[in-house]
């Protein structure tokens, strides 16, 4: 081989070496960047900016239910750190699981409710809802004229259920069977501003998430961000929610609320005892709703609305336990079905004592 040829080969080889080196460097720096990004977002890394954790780590976070224990710990630590810095108070984010052998149910006595809205305000306070522009309320209290009630008590026990060829659906014959035995929400006012309640000739009916046993919102969610836990409570993973609002459209009770803007939660009013699926502060673009105060009920406490009710109109308990308040209400009181036609089997019951 001539010297000239050898030189030419060397030159080509050098060029290839250079290109290889360049590609190697590019690959190495890409790998380094990929490794460094999550590492920089690791909660163990001290950063003065609490939002810095959110940008990468929370963005790449998976569905909480599907996370490993270690990932869950990291996600919780990240949130606690961010909320503590943001609201300037020690904030805890619990991930206590639902107790076994429990199916939560709720019953509300519309005969007792006086429409004071203490439950609404207790809910707002407990669950870290947006306080202004607008104040997001998970409970709506409807005020209705007593004329809407259209059954007579003396006829109640005179009917009897009849079997049909399609099966025993408990269809009543006699008594109130040939007129609507119940009441209608016609002419209801959601935003009454009375200074004194209850107003004469009116009754009140608070409405919130009915915690359906067959929840249409869960079926509608394209990413399964909303789901029903084994205690029967429908929850939302706010970090997994994509804000498509399909669940809101699917809900027959319109019990879901979308955060169109960044929620306004003043630091001094923030409740620092939170749950991952419950009352932790939400962000813009996600759905929220009543969770039966999951942060309380999973620890054996009553929901805030029940505690706030001054007339004892609210009952909460385990539907699997025949001795629970809710089961006793179902067994002994006059209970109403509400939007039964949707076949969602709500676990929230309205009754008259």
């Amino acid at each position: 081989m001539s010297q000239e040829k050898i030189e030419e080969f060397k030159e080509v080889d050098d060029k290839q070496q250079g290109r290889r080196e360049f590609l190697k460097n590019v690959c190495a720096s890409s790998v380094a960047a990929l490794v460094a990004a999550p590492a920089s977002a690791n909660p163990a890394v001290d950063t003065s900016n609490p939002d810095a954790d959110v940008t990468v780590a929370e963005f790449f976070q998976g569905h909480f239910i599907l996370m490993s224990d270690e990932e869950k710990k990291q996600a919780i630590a990240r949130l606690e750190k961010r909320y503590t810095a943001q609201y300037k108070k020690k904030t805890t984010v619990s991930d206590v699981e639902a107790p076994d052998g429990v199916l939560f149910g709720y019953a509300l006595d519309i005969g007792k409710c006086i429409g004071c809205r203490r439950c609404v305000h207790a809910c707002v306070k407990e669950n870290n809802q947006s306080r202004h522009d607008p104040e997001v309320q998970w409970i709506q209290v409807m005020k209705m004229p007593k004329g809407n009630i259209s059954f007579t008590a003396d006829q109640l026990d005179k009917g009897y259920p009849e079997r049909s060829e399609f099966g025993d659906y408990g269809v009543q014959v006699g008594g109130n069977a040939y007129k609507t035995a119940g009441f209608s929400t016609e002419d209801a006012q959601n935003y009454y501003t009375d200074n004194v309640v209850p107003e004469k000739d009116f009754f009140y009916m608070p409405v919130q998430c009915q915690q359906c046993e067959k929840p249409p919102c869960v079926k509608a969610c394209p990413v399964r961000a909303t789901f029903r836990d084994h205690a029967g409570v429908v929850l939302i993973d706010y970090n997994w929610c994509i804000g498509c609002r399909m669940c809101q459209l699917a809900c027959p009770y319109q019990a879901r609320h979308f955060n169109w803007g960044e929620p306004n939660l003043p630091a001094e009013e923030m409740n620092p005892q939170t749950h991952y699926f419950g009352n932790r502060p939400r962000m813009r673009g996600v759905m929220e709703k009543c969770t039966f105060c999951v942060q309380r009920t999973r620890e054996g406490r009553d929901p805030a609305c029940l505690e706030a009710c001054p007339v004892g109109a609210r009952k909460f308990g385990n539907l699997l336990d025949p001795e629970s308040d809710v089961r006793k209400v179902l067994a002994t009181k006059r209970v109403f079905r509400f939007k039964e036609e949707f076949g969602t089997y709500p676990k929230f019951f309205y009754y008259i004592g």
Partner: protein
Amino acid sequence: MKEENSRRLFFKKAAAAVGVVAAAGYTTNLISRSSASTNNASAKYAADLAAQEKAMMGNQLVLMTDDEKKQRIDKLLNCHYQAIA
């Protein structure tokens, strides 16, 4: 030289003026866009509340018979135990 200077000065002033106008326009645009989005959000919250009010109107709450209540409880418990299984 003076002529060149004055021409350069003129271009400088013209460029500065264009810059100022552009910056002002951009700022106005930003401000109006942010206030519009706030109004938009308020309107959307109001629309949600109106939809909720509409969904709650004109419903019948019908009294359940004892059989219906029993069926309801049975159904709830069946669903629950099936889900657990």
